[in-house]
């Protein structure tokens, strides 16, 4: 065999390795960079802050990853968060549990709505959820009379600020969601069917998979997780702020998913990659703030990082 044929596989292997592990490498690299160049980076409190801030994006992104796995997209997540936020104060009087349940149910209903539009009416995911993105926030504001409401229920606020065994509740919730998502994708028929539907919908239909049910299920999960993220963010904020909560969340979540190596073309879901994608974007954000870069530079740097990360993680055609 010639040296060319030997060299090619090595390069291919490096590329394939990067494609699989690039996002972890990037997170580690960024941590190392910060440890060296950022003052006061190495502290428990700081890591805690980063994890807490990444948690809502991470939760939403996990739902988004499932949707993207079916070759869909869910633009409505930010608005669902805002609907959840709007509902919380209305039901907090009946106790935090009721309020949280109501919010999550609202998320499920939103997901059901998008899911039915996509699965049964055959409307493009991007446009079905775009309608909810536009209308959903309006709905939330109508429900809340456009008002920000300060919350005082301690038990509820503890969701945002409390700890369990020294781990912030928000981080714990995100971790549980991640583990469940991982199991769902790898170990359940639903998960495998989801990936198959994303890989080839026509073939999945002919293979007798419950394609519509899978699609609706995926949007319901995404809606529920978005609502959950909305609840947690509201608790952390100490106020229900339907006007601003979750703005542009869809883009952050999609970025986390794609940077984490899940292709937008569906047929594949990388759960751990998504978690690290969210962490990576959080760290980038933190680094830019800590180095006090102006908004202009910050946005351009983020753009560059997204491009590089996705470039490395992209699916290569075998040429």
């Amino acid at each position, binding site marked *: 065999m010639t040296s*060319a044929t030997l060299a090619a596989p090595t390069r291919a292997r490096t590329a394939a390795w990067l494609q699989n592990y690039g996002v972890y490498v990037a997170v580690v690299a960024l941590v190392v960079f910060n440890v060296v160049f950022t003052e006061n980076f190495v502290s428990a409190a700081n890591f805690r802050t980063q994890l807490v801030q990444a948690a809502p994006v991470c939760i939403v992104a996990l739902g988004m990853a499932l949707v993207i796995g079916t070759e869909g997209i869910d633009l409505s997540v930010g608005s669902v968060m805002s609907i959840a936020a709007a509902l919380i104060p209305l039901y907090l009087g009946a106790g935090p549990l009721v309020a949280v349940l109501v919010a999550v149910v609202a998320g499920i209903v939103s997901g059901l709505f998008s899911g039915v539009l996509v699965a049964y009416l055959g409307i493009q995911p991007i446009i079905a959820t775009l309608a909810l993105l536009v209308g959903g926030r309006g709905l939330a504001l109508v429900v809340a009379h456009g008002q920000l409401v300060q919350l005082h229920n301690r038990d509820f606020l503890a969701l945002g600020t409390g700890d369990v065994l020294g781990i912030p509740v928000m981080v714990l919730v995100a971790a549980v969601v991640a583990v469940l998502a991982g199991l769902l994708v790898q170990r*359940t028929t639903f998960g*495998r069917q989801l990936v198959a539907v994303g890989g080839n919908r026509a073939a999945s239909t002919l*293979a*007798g998979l419950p394609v519509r049910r899978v699609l609706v299920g995926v949007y319901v999960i995404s809606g529920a997780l978005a609502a959950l993220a909305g609840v947690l963010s509201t608790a952390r904020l100490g106020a229900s702020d339907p006007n601003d909560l979750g703005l542009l969340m869809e883009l952050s979540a999609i970025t986390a998913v794609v940077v984490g190596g899940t292709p937008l073309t569906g047929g594949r879901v990388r759960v751990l990659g998504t978690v690290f994608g969210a962490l990576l974007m959080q760290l980038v954000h933190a680094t830019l703030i800590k180095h006090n870069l102006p908004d202009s530079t910050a946005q351009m740097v983020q753009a560059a990082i997204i491009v590089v990360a996705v470039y490395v993680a992209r699916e290569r055609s075998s*040429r």
Partner: protein
Amino acid sequence: MTAVTDPGTSRTTAPVLEVTGVSKRFPGTLALDDVSFALRPGEVHALVGENGAGKSTLIKVLTGVYQPDSGEVRHLGHTVAFRRPAEAQQAGISTIYQEVNLVPLMSIAGNVFLGREPRTRAGLVDWRRMNAEARALLADYGITDDVRRPLHTLGVGAQQMVALARAVSTDAKVVIMDEPTSSLEPREVEKLFEVLARLHAQGIAILYVSHRMDELYRVCDRVTVLRDGRVVHSGPLAELPRLELVSLMLGREIGKIREEGVTAFGEEHEVEREPVLRAEKLRGVRKLRDVSLTIRPGEVLGLAGLLGSGRSETARALVGAFPLDGGTVVVAGKPLKRGRVPAAMRAGVALLAEDRKTDGIIPNLSVRENIALAALPRLSPFGLVSKSKQDRIVRVFMERLRIKASSPDQKVAELSGGNQQKVLLARWLATGPRVLLLDEPTRGIDVGAKAEVQALIDELAREGLGVLLISSELEELVDGADRVLVLSDGAVAEELTGQDITEEKVLAAIARGGHDD
């Protein structure tokens, strides 16, 4: 057609297209291993080999779809490195790739002329001329549909003819055809051969891939045999006995290959009286007109007809994958809910679809997952996937069907066409069906695998499965089926049984159906 190449002249004429020492590696496979091969002007050169031997890969290397890892490609004596198919086409190499590669939503005429649309003096696309030219061109290939209709409204076979028309209508010096007849039916195959003869007369070099032996001997001058990515033979075809060619392809001794006839089907089956599936007056939105049929356990029911006669539509309707205006399907006494594939599947009806690329494989899933897909709920207690149960079944079927993959974890997209087909067959067998609807099951499968699949169909019927076999290869129907329904224009035109099932009678029935109305 006879071999016209004179050995004396062919030595002096430089090859139009030539590769030397080409290797191409994919993750897990060495698809081409030091391949050297030459295509001379004016010859029809057969490229044969088992599924996965590397034929399509070689074609893709020749035409710039893939870059070889080593070795070189020469065109008219000059070393070339086509970086994309466009460059090969500019150099006068026109290719019909294995899977139909056209644009479904675009008009038929648009597809024929895509990239080289006739233009007005102002440089704008001249639609009127384009449609007129396309109409004239396609009429030669027996396609008389409105050329302004989107391509996807044609059946697969007709699409293949469009692709052929497109490839041939460029003034190419070399035409490469990767299994052009696999979705054609006898009449269309004859059309194709007429075209081939014309090209041959014009001195155009043709590289021809097919798994159908008779075709090769009819049209080809020379043959190159690939096995496991290596060239094992290259030479004039007429001198090579058929048996020896097969043995070269399969890499087995001639003695071990029993020549049993063209197909591997056995004797008649023992058929039960009570049908397992009974369809009454199926009426489709598009085509079907009151199709009724029954399938009995242990029986192979053949379905014959012209392109677009409604065979595929019938099969899809039976599994509920096709909207129906009326009709009922009863399986084992229970009527199926219309339009629900899962219900049909639960009742034990499975369809191996015609187009494996769009309706069959899930490309980015592994061989294992593709096989287990339909049986997944059964293999997964409480909706939790059990890998061991999966593996057991996957192993059984990979062995039984001799699926060639580097491992069950290989992506199914990386398999050769024939092996993909076997994976799909395995998918259905894994569900343990009562009725198997096979729409062109041996399309694009090599001789070895084809015999295996045919023997398998036989065996399945013997085990008591009801089988519906759709095939455009008459001998397959004649040898394999216990009963043949001839469809014409969406309706059952004739039913042939027992001794009546001969090629002549089936052809005659098809012809009658086609001309009656």
